[in-house]
């Protein structure tokens, strides 16, 4: 049992290290407020065409077994 525990321990430890590394990496990413000219353009928004996204999502929702991801999975429709 002890041996097993020793083998199992590195996993959570590894996850913690990864998480901390990821978070510290995130904190080194980013820009100053005056460097946001390009990112502030409407076409650089992650969902820059919400009507297009909604129309497309509805098509794929009704034709495929998957939905959501970007936002909630949809529903409210008898089409699937």
């Amino acid at each position: 049992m002890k041996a097993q525990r020793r083998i199992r321990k590195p996993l959570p430890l590894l996850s913690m290290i990864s998480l901390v590394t990821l978070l510290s990496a995130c904190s080194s990413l980013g820009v100053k407020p005056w460097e946001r000219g390009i990112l502030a353009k409407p076409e650089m928004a992650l969902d820059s065409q919400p009507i297009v996204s909604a129309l497309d999502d509805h098509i794929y929702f009704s034709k495929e077994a998957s939905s959501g991801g970007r936002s909630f999975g949809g529903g409210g429709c008898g089409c699937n």
Partner: protein
Amino acid sequence: MVDAVSEVAAVAATDSGRTAGKACSLSATLAMATAALLGSADSQAGFLSDDSDWQVSAGLLVYNEQDRVSAVEPVISARKSLDTDEFLNLKLTIDTLTGASATGAVSADQPQTFTRPSGNGQYGIGVDTTPLDDTFQDTRVTLNAGWERPVAEDLTLNLGTALSKEYDYLSLGISSGLARDINAGNTTLSGGFSASFDSVEPVGGEPVPFATMLPAGSAQIRQGSGSDKQVLDAIFGVTQIINQRSLFQLNYSISHASGYLNDPYKFISVVDPVSGEPVFENTEQADLPTVAFENRPDSRTKHSLYAQYKVSLSDSILDTSYRFLTDDWGINSHTLDFRYRIPVGNGHYWQPHLRYYQQSAADFYTPFYVGDDRPDPGDSSRYGSADYRLGDLTGLTLGLEFGRRTASNGWSVAAEYYLQSGKEPDNSFGSLQNQTLSPDIDIVFLRVVRDF
């Protein structure tokens, strides 16, 4: 995420009279809002300088499946700034569908006649032809309303409601979400929750699982007029600015649906164990094949991971995303999406689009039953569906958009071609092997959007 949460929001009228009234008053309001906008100062998306301003967008989708469903879907949305960083979002969508829809039955080398869902009337399917019910028509009206406002420094709250009504289906939904900016606004953490309460009243009543279709005019085997379904969704995301030109988003979502998850209009053919031909055993109507109505589990839990990366490459913008989805029905899917926006001067741009989708079949996907394999009518402990959307399939979309965005408004037109290819069943035998049981579906859709 803020937009995503508000997307789900909604309220709508439940009958056509009320809907028409609301649509009229909304149009009048939007017309006034548009007039107001024309004289307004320039504004950036989501950040209006004048509190009385409305941002109005309208779109139209024209959708056509070869030999199957056609749809026309107008949508109008309006966003009003109520206060600094406080917005009201409204959206009205009307979806009109007509055409023919796959029933799940197999094509055969002899004619087949099926009973319509109402139980009154029938439709004939020719030799070597995929059985489609050509009476499919519906109009769906959906209204979404959302409200977003800052509740603390760098913390935004979204609340929304949704109502969607079609002939045989009603859905009421609520949603809420929180988004928190950290790391000097370079990182946004978000979380959201939504619940929808749906009810379905199938035309002709709710079929008993695996019950046999009876001839038109006979009392079909039904178990009531309809049932309910609930869907709970939660989503957690992080959005990170990488540098002056790029950012990414990573979302995890979980969705749990429970209740009536069957498609009441889908059924499964029973074929002869030797010849592979449909069984015709109805003594009153010789050309009515034996088909059993489907039955799915009464709950489904889906998990998905969604990653999006957007980068400005000199003047062009590359927008890519990937989604992995897995559920307890045995379906796994992968979705890849690329949009590449190429400016061509004076605010005009071209935007090619490529999307690839692949899914594995649900554990209970059953394109046909062989003889006695068919479960007994009413045996709700067993599951089976021949709905091709639960089978192995791939989808490929190619699209091209042309548009223009100026400082104050924009428009776009797009044409997309979507090819859906199902996998032929591995266990085909006999005359089934001469049939195309999962025919490709060609879909073309045109989309026009105008931001006022």
